[in-house]
């Protein structure tokens, strides 16, 4: 895994590792989804997130939501592209419909992860308080 060098390198580093681990956990728990595969790939190859946003091959390929080329459609396009960037693996999704599916699933998983992490944080902080921790 990517747990190499979990050095005691300060809060930021630790938090980053935690986040990585959280993402991996999240991805593993929802195996079948495109975004989870993308997350795993991303982590495994240690590709920075910003890299994927610069690929032009698919970023423009999201099919048009509407038939007309009104300015609103262009705005919609922009938003859809933003969503693509947000959802891991979104750039590879060509159809808006698929993108929305993945987004829905990703949102669910994120919510679960947030609540789990929150619970964990509360638990551990509670321990700290109880134990009179540092």
């Amino acid at each position: 895994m990517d747990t190499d060098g979990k050095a005691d390198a300060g809060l930021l580093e630790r938090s980053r590792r935690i986040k990585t681990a959280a993402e991996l956990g999240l991805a593993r728990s929802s195996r079948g989804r495109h975004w989870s595969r993308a997350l795993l790939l991303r982590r495994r190859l240690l590709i920075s997130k910003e890299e994927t946003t610069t690929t032009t091959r698919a970023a423009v390929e999201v099919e048009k939501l509407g038939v007309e080329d009104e300015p609103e459609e262009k705005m919609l396009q922009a938003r859809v592209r933003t969503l693509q960037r947000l959802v891991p693996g979104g750039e590879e999704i060509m159809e808006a419909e698929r993108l929305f599916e993945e987004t829905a699933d990703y949102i669910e998983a994120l919510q679960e992860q947030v609540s789990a992490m929150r619970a964990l944080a509360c638990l551990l902080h509670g321990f700290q308080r109880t134990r009179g921790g540092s």
Partner: protein
Amino acid sequence: MEPPRSSGVGIDNSGEYSPEIAETLRFEEEIQSLIHPSSFDGSAAPTGGGSFTALLGLPANQAVELLHDSGAREPLASRIRVGEHPVHRPFHLPLDCSSAFPSNATLVDRAARFSVFAAEGSPASSSGRLKAEPQDSDSPPLDPIPTGPAKRKDTGRSKCDVRLSLSFKSQAKVTAKKSKNAEENTDGDKLPYVHVRARRGQATDNHSLAERARREKINARMKLLQELVPGCSKITGTALVLDEIINHVQTLQRQVEFLSMRLAAVNPRIDFSSLDSYLSAECGPVTVRNGPGGVVVDPSLWPTDATAEATRRLLVPQFWHIDLVPPQLQPQQSLTTWERDGAAHSQLLPNPTTSLFLYDPANSGDTNVPHRTAKLKTAEDRALNL
């Protein structure tokens, strides 16, 4: 070619429409004649007619003849469009409408079989279907239903078959939305798909219709997303909804980052011996993800040897950097992770003196280690309802 308007009427009352509809349709006819003077003969019709006639099982010309006989000539998109709008609003047509339609039994029969309302006959079902129809509207993609399903209940019927004929004409994926009877979709279309129809100002060629079908699928997904994102249901307009969704995703991602930072700040001083008491006592915030029973800690999982282990571990200078993996991981996996973590880089924490959360890789008590990590994992599992 003109699909008969009676297609929509294919209920028991063989094609009766109210005078209003007839008027409207005649109005449409006139416009139609102005716009497409030559399109009334079946040969001039685009191939879309073929689907309909195939539907009818009649040759195009014969169908056209039937229609011509009835004098109720319908079908082009532009006309429908024109006629649609007025039909939309004010008419509350009774279900039994006067006949301006072919009374040809064959035609009506076939239309009945393939129509939206075939075998339905009841206003309830048709209105039920009609309520679903508004979803097809793509002008306000998210707003369709509130436009008075009651109103559409009656008008929609005529609208429906108008659209039905329209879509027949253009050979789109024409299937009745939620048609209950087994009218296998007319074009042999595999999906029991949305009843695609033309709206004002939109073309009806195959391409646009396919696109519109796709767009409706997209709108369905969008609805799903709306339900998922809190506070999104009230928003109308695709762009705003998308904004909201993007905002939500970003918020969640930021929350994850923030929480990971918070977790990183947690000093991993966990006293296993008192873990059970703590969990049973102060399990308020932890019940977020738990089942109805809240945190369930089985004291039997914490036998005395755990305490003994904890004590023993205290003496060992190695410390275990907690890799706070969210508990979605399988126990086996997380076990591996933790073991690997501990083995690879057990580091001294900033305040290593009395850290109670210890792991000694050098102490190759393999039985103990898995046991311990399993216990830890189990505790957290239970805490977080895994």
